[in-house]
């Protein structure tokens, strides 16, 4: 990261529960706004971050005692990188799910009620990197933007 990137107060850690995740996302969103994340990107970041954290709570820590989720953000010129770490189970096949959306051109009773999460993350981010490292998961979401933070 360049020297003109901001890291201050952009790292948070919280227990992986739905309630704590809601609070954590709200806290981080407010700090990113205060550090100059362009308003036009704020919604995208909030949606993608919520989905990524939900996945950790619901899948990585499924069936285990929930540990912490660590989030580190770096806000640079024209990009925001968010690194999400957990110590839960690996992603299936050690890769990022493709996020294909089930068809909505279907009968009412066949409409999908889930499977939207990765689709949203793919659509809202500029790049996604996943790595299994030291018994944990490391997910990096990058958001590019035109305006200077």
């Amino acid at each position, binding site marked *: 990261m360049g020297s003109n990137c901001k890291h201050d107060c952009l790292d948070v850690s919280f227990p992986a529960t739905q309630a704590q995740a809601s609070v954590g996302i709200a806290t981080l969103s407010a700090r990113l706004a205060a550090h100059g994340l362009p308003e036009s990107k704020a919604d*995208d970041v909030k949606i993608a971050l919520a989905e990524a954290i*939900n996945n950790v709570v619901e899948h990585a820590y499924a069936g285990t005692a929930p540990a912490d989720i660590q989030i580190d953000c770096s806000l640079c010129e024209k990009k925001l990188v968010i690194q999400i770490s957990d110590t839960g189970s690996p992603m299936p096949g050690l890769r990022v799910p493709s996020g294909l959306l089930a068809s*909505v*051109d279907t009968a009412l*009773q066949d*409409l999908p*009620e889930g499977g*939207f999460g990765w*689709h949203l993350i793919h*659509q809202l981010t500029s790049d996604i990197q996943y790595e299994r490292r030291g018994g944990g998961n490391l997910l990096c979401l990058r958001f590019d933007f035109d305006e200077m933070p």
Partner: protein
Amino acid sequence: MGLSSDMTGETQIISVHCDRIDAALAIQFKEDMRAETRTDAKRVVLDLSTVEFIDSSGLGAIVAAMKQLEDGRRLDLAGLRPIVEKVFRLTRMDTVFRLFASLDEAIGAGAD
């Protein structure tokens, strides 16, 4: 989780009194909607104007709420904030639901 209900003519209006419908609240929301929609109203309008955030679980719960209505009844959505509308648009659910900018607009539009 805080829903209230009113009848306007043939339309039932359900207002959400909560600033988010997310994974923490999705199951409760679906159950509360089931209880609130035990009526004869052919059309239900869900007023989302107080909802500042929705995630995919919340979206799924709204889809489930529509699916649990009997045949011939419909669920329309009103008062979506930009971030909420975006989640519907990116998942193409904006083609499934009728979305109205405000409750007044939804009431004015009627059932068709």
